[in-house]
């Protein structure tokens, strides 16, 4: 157990915690933030994705020690932003949501991409999604949604 200082969804937080605990378990079991999902537990599927300092990370592979001094944003936190609204609407309009289990992770991947590259090409989108598995859609409608979000949200990123 040790004390770490970090930011979660915009709030400074001080946790007395086992440093080896997975961020995913902390979020789901201690903070009841159930948006990040566990699909594989080994960094393949991306369902557990969160933003750490604006960049996508798999929370199943982040020990609590590694969030010390960093800012973590989950889908719940990101959902309060205007950028989220733009991305969410584009996902709805393009039919990019099916079973929905991968979807919060896909939204996080989209934000992480657009934060660095507001007008991505299709191949940049594919690279950005390469750690987020979806078994329902075949990805095309997700790619279209991200393209649409980038277009609608010009100036937001």
């Amino acid at each position: 157990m040790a004390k770490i200082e970090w930011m979660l969804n915009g709030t400074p937080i001080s946790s007395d915690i086992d440093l080896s605990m997975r961020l995913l378990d902390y979020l789901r079991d201690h903070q009841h933030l159930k948006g990040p999902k566990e699909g594989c537990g080994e960094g393949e599927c991306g369902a557990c994705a969160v933003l750490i300092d604006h960049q996508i990370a798999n929370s199943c592979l982040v020990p609590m020690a590694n969030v010390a001094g960093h800012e973590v944003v989950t889908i719940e936190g990101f959902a309060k932003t205007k950028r989220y609204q733009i991305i969410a609407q584009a996902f709805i309009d393009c039919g990019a949501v099916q079973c929905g289990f991968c979807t919060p992770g896909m939204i996080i991947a989209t934000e992480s991409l657009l934060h660095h590259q507001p007008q991505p090409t299709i191949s940049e989108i594919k690279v950005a999604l390469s750690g987020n598995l979806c078994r329902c859609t075949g990805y095309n409608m997700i790619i279209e949604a991200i393209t649409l979000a980038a277009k609608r949200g010009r100036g937001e990123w």
Partner: protein
Amino acid sequence: MKFQPDIGTPIPRVDAKEKISGAAAYINDIDMPGMLYAKTLRSKMAHGKIIKRHYPTLPEGYAIIDYRHIPGTNIVKAIYEDWQIFPVDEVRYIGEPILLVVGENKDVIIDILEAIEITYEEMEPQFEWIDSVIHYHYEKKHGSRPFADANRIIEHTYETGYQEQAYIEPQGMIGYLDQDKMTLIGSIQCPYYVKNAVLMALGWENERVRVIQAHVGGAFGGKEEYPSLIACQLAMAVIQVNKPVKLIFEREEDIIASTKRHPAQIAMKAAIDSEGHIMALKVHVGIDAGAVIGLSGVVLSRAMIAATGAYTIENLDVTGDVYRTHSVPTGAFRGFGAPQMMFAIEMFMEHIARNLGKEPLAYRMAYVAKQYDLTATSGTFRDPILMQKMIEEAMKRSRYEEKALQYQNLHRYQGIGMSFFLHGCGFTGSGEATTIKAKVRLRREASGVVHILIAAVDMGQGVRTAMRKLVAHMLEVPIDQVIYDLPDTDCVPDSGPTVASRTMMIVGGLVARAAQRLGMEPQIAVEIEETYHQPSEIQWDEARMQGDAYPAYSWGVNVVEVAVDPVTGEVSVVGAWSVYDVGKAIDTLMVRGQADGGLAQGIAYGYLEVMRHHQGKIQQRNLTDYIIPTAADMPPMETYLFDNPYAYGPYGAKGVGELTLVGGAPAIAKAIEMAIKRQITKIPVTPEMIMELMTHGED
């Protein structure tokens, strides 16, 4: 009358917002006060006798649940009842669940699991396909007799491997006692399958088991029969500890222990006359059931019924066997026997033409089924068949002919492949009328709000949106006046399982009929019930496999274009085009969602997804080694729909879900054949296989 847009015009998914925001509760997102956890101890042996069980002394609040805790029958209720809830004295596959450890602290549970000692006496495992436990046979017209007069006989054997459903949400369930009612919430496709299985395992009366669906993070058949096993085990645990218990699979145990697509070996033989026409086909379908027969007989029969794919062949002799082995049980997976068969027949038609020196496309086109042709099982294709036009459309959209001509060049390593296929909608034969007996209800409150009461599960295909849209459209009310909650067996009648591409055509058909009656009902607060009746012209002889196997068929054409890297044998999928006849799309965007996702699974089945066992042990045990496509692996996909309304489907709708998967593998296999100029008889067509074929293979 108000202006009504066409039913197919897309609307937003009703559950999209809560799924995007992470608010939708999947089973692992639900916690209950006092909830305990369960973890499964699994067999490490493919076949063995349990000689002794040593259980450690348990701390208070912990329990071990095994076969001794089953008050009712130690069998999971399913089509073929040979699946034990817990083994008594013999294990039959690696990963077989032997017992559960239940308690509050997961670390303590792990310690208990590690302290349990099971002593086995190893028995000889069987992995060869020799133990046939189900054998079927049917003939069409003269059966195999034309072989005696054949000018030439062409034969090839086709093989397909395991495929893992790889839903992103692993299996999971929570059980608890509500007063004295066993209640189960789960990631499931078929609430009533689970309920009936638990009833039999407990031996309780009907009212005392309740099953509720949580949001389902993908299923693809993998949550059809398998959750019944988990539910029965969990129910035993709940009785013992009298607290809520949660059982969520880790990805690895999900992959090694849950059902997957049956590996198949399909031997095809054609009798050819002096003109090069096919006189008859002789087909044998063998599938590996693993250690449990379960649904395998139905998978086999669906494969056999699809023996001629989208073609009409005059004479047929079709046999099939389900083989039992000491490997992981296989079961339901989108397509249910058809993907294996479509691969075999599509490749075989191509290979016959090539063996005869004929142009394959023209040769195949000549056999494409037409309205009023006899089906493989001597039923009748009663409805119009649009395949000729659909094929033309697919060729035009993909520029098939131009590319096929260019890619004949030996040094191009590019290819384009086209598959023709069909899929029977709903249960086989009279299953809907005799076994399922679907029942639906619509209830209108005094406020005018209408509840759709059905047991159909939204696992991503969009059924909650589609059903609400259907009822709203028919009653000409806004969609938010129509309610369709996640099914709860205490609230909804048994409209049947969410499987077999039956939900919109069969259940939706009943819902539409109920809505029509409701629309004419003068009283506001009223409940309408509809039950399924087989159209009288549909006749099926189960024992002889003769007659109309399905009330209707959906049809499709897939074109897939690839480039093969001659240095590494790696395949890049460059493009994919599809044309479907699903009767009428209830929502064109959702149908496209099914089309893209189904084709991705079908293509990946054909070239990417490798799973094998070695002495019963699955070798690809996680998502690092069991490879499903990423965004970078999938090409742009174009889908075109042909309307061809079916009389008994709502607005003419037929089945969609499975159709979109079954043509992918043969399309990509043909494309790879064209690229490497070698004959392919096995899927997945891996780079290893391609390299082997390019080095040693035959044209």
